């Protein structure tokens, strides 16, 4: 597979190590003052020109949040977060659309380049072209991209092409106006505003995110993708994504995240809601590479994310795949409520922690429908002085006759200063259901390293190869381009952790 060679090349190329996505972009910003109160919530809503019902919804969430306490059950530690010391709204200043690439803020273009977005798409994202270009001969199928810059969606590509097949892909702030009935019906239907502390916070202050609607029987003609980036200082990012796939529809959605290198911790509290109706399929892939902080644990993103999908209809399927290498703290449990009979939930996860990173991540599979099936494959890699926890719930409700769950949970420790933890919760209330859970812990064996080096691989290449092998069952679930990026990330993240 060429991807692995690229991994090796990347490792070789990055001689200094460190976080290569850690650039910050100097762009004029429109920012709300620091702090959080009802007025800020109103201000956000006003900036977006939101209808009254949405403001009311936000305020209700805010009131609920005020009464809640930060959850403390995860195996993470951090100094108290001062929620009044953050900006809750930051957006690049709007200017009239540029006529050509020359007029585009070069900093923005440079950012897209660093994000690895192809040139043509960079131009589209910057608003130069109308956002609708057919793929040329022999090119890879296009990917429609929504770029969320701090809290605001800056551009969405290929919208017209998608619209031809009835697919809606736009910023959620826009969907509120263009498709209010859909947003009103589904927003908060999977993750209610008061679901948990961070979801309530998000519901009160979310400023943008992606909205996807796939109508009945439509197979989305291209991959949909969102790049999230936190750029401004002292801002929290609270994006909100809502994906609805009607009967028999199909979509594959990719999400990538980066942030600049900063000394202070930044808060990211997103909510993602997925709704899959009868025979619908949603594949949601994430490569999370927020800034993880430096070797001493200074700086980095606090990533407190609520992701949940509901398989409403029979034979619907939601598949989560995540590669988590970034963030100082990751608190994230992409979940599936398997309501429909014969519905399928999947969770494939690679979580890498090094230095002082802490990850507490896993999933919840709630089996309600008959013969609903879930698969969980989690690969945790701990290095440095980090802590890496898998936390997962499998709950079989009483009516879930013939439900099945299989969980495989493997931890790899690199070095003797890190921790690897596995905390599964298995709750079964139906005798005809079957659940299986397996977990193992291992290290990279000295003889594996020696074997590779005897064949000519350097120590770091050997580690990269073995780690990628360890994660293979998850990586193969990623769409091709993401898999390549993920493999590179794994190797780069673990650089210098052995030997």
């Amino acid at each position: 597979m060429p991807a692995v060679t690229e991994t090796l090349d990347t490792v070789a190329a990055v001689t200094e190590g460190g976080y290569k996505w850690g650039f910050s972009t100097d762009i004029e910003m429109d920012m709300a003052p620091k702090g959080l109160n009802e007025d800020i919530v109103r201000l956000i809503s006003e900036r977006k020109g939101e209808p009254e019902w949405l403001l009311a919804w936000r305020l209700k969430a805010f009131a609920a949040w005020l009464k809640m306490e930060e959850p403390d059950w995860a195996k993470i530690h951090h100094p108290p977060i001062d929620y009044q010391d953050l900006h809750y709204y930051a957006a690049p200043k709007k200017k009239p659309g540029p006529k050509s690439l020359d007029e585009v803020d070069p900093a923005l273009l440079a950012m897209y380049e660093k994000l690895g977005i192809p040139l043509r798409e960079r131009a589209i994202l910057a608003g130069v072209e109308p956002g609708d270009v057919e793929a040329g001969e022999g090119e890879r199928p296009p990917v429609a991209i929504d770029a969320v810059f701090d809290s605001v969606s800056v551009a969405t590509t290929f919208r017209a092409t998608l619209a031809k097949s009835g697919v809606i892909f736009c910023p959620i702030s826009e969907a509120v106006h263009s498709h209010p009935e859909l947003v009103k019906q589904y927003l908060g239907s999977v993750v209610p505003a008061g679901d948990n502390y961070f979801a309530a916070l998000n519901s009160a202050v979310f400023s943008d995110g992606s909205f996807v609607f796939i109508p009945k029987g439509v197979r989305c003609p291209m991959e949909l993708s969102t790049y999230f980036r936190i750029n401004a200082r002292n801002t929290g990012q609270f994006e909100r994504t809502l994906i609805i796939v009607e009967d028999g529809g199909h979509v594959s959605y990719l999400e990538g995240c980066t942030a600049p290198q900063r000394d202070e911790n930044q808060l990211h509290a997103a909510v993602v809601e997925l709704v899959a109706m009868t025979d619908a399929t949603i594949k949601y892939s994430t490569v999370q590479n927020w800034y993880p902080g430096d070797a001493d644990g200074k700086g980095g993103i606090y990533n407190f994310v609520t992701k949940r999908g509901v398989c409403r209809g029979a034979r619907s399927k939601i598949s989560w795949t995540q590669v988590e290498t970034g963030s100082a703290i990751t608190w994230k449990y992409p979940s599936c409520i398997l309501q429909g009979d014969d519905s399928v939930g999947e969770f494939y996860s690679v979580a890498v922690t090094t230095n002082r990173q802490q990850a507490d991540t896993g999933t919840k599979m709630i089996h309600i429908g008959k013969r609903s099936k879930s698969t969980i494959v989690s690969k945790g890699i701990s290095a440095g002085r980090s802590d890496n926890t898998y936390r997962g719930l499998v709950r079989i409700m009483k009516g879930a006759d013939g439900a099945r769950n299989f969980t495989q949970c493997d931890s790899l420790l690199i070095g003797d200063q890190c921790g690897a933890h596995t905390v599964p919760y298995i709750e079964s209330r139906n005798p005809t259901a079957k659940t299986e859970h397996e977990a193992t812990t291992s290290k990279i064996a000295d003889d594996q390293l020696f074997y590779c080096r005897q064949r000519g691989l350097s120590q770091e290449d050997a580690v990269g190869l073995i780690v990628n092998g360890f994660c293979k069952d998850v990586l193969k679930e990623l769409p091709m381009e993401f898999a390549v990026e993920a493999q590179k990330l794994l190797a780069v993240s673990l650089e210098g952790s052995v030997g």
Partner: protein
Amino acid sequence: MNAVSQTSLQAAAASFRARYEGLKERLGGDSIQRAEAADAFAHQGLPGPREEAWRYTVLRPLTEVAFHEPVVLLSDCAAGLAALPDLGMPRLVFIDGRFRADLSDAVTGAEVRTGAPAFGPSVALGEKMVALNAMLAEDGAAITVAPGVDAGAVMLVSLGSDAHGVPVSFHPRHSVVLGKGARLTLVEINAGTGVYFNNPVLVAEVAEDATLVHLRMQQEAAGAFHLSTVLAEVGARGTYDSFSLALGGRLSRVEVHATLLGEKAMAHLNAAQLLGGSQHSDFTTIVRHHAPATASRQTVKNVLTGRSKGVFQGKIEVARIAQKTDGYQMNQTLLLSGDAEIDSKPQLEIYADDVKCSHGATVGELDADQLFYLRSRGVPAEQARNLLVRAFLSEALDPIAHEGARAAMEAAIAAWWERQA
């Protein structure tokens, strides 16, 4: 619900504290340690459902009963005693938590002291049920085996009763100290009639090269509460080898903390829980690997019928120093009824890289193919099910080396099966 249950937990805790205030002058032992325990209990109270370790076992039913001090000295426990298996070993009998010399045998090979407990250094007052025990413990057996001595087997019996006319609670405090290279098999049987609350703590110190085999049969009365804790510490090359069978009680929890302190120390924490009706039973273990090359093995089987609820929580902790740890844990559950429920939480917490740790958990019903196979060979359905359940349990039962004790467990399981049918 949480708020209500929180209040009732506080009320129940207050009544235990009131009992202590009334009794403290009369309770023997180290009054300073006792007061520390009372302080800890006053501070912590009873465990509630918001605590991670107690999320699946809610003590609310315990708070619905007012428990009293067992005041009357009972003379007639003939039925309970007659029902004990004859294993040809000396027995130490406690009735409602009080030692009864007249019903007990002399033990050779080990020194046995009874009466007000000496708490020793490992009091673990952070554990709420241990703090409650230490606050109210008035009796217990302290068994000491000298270095190099094989003390054979001893039976430790607890019978609870309803002869007082009011529900009683008792909090016996036992200790087992094995010197270097010593050996002891302790067969613990908990049984009784009526409504009572048995809250025993057993502290085991297993020195280098010593072996403690701890076989436990919990057959408490249908209305009884059983919340027990074992705190075991094992030295180099020592072994704590335990099997717990839970059959009785309305609400029970057996909690075992095994700490492996010396190189190559070893712990076996096997268990079987067979539950019916609306029973709730919880087997919770914490194995701490604190030295290199230590090993732990846990095989825990649940068979649930009726509307019963089974809980397994097992945690393997591997400290940074405990390289070459070998930890294994398997929890399997058979759900034999549409109303039964299992909550299982096997857990690994690992801080050393050169270790071999794994756990597994499965939940399901009896294998339909196996059942059909047996029936097609002429085995009646009920017998076939029994056969398969016994086969399912065998992995946990077979390692019991003491044949008499194993036979007694098998018999108790057979009787349980009869009752379910």
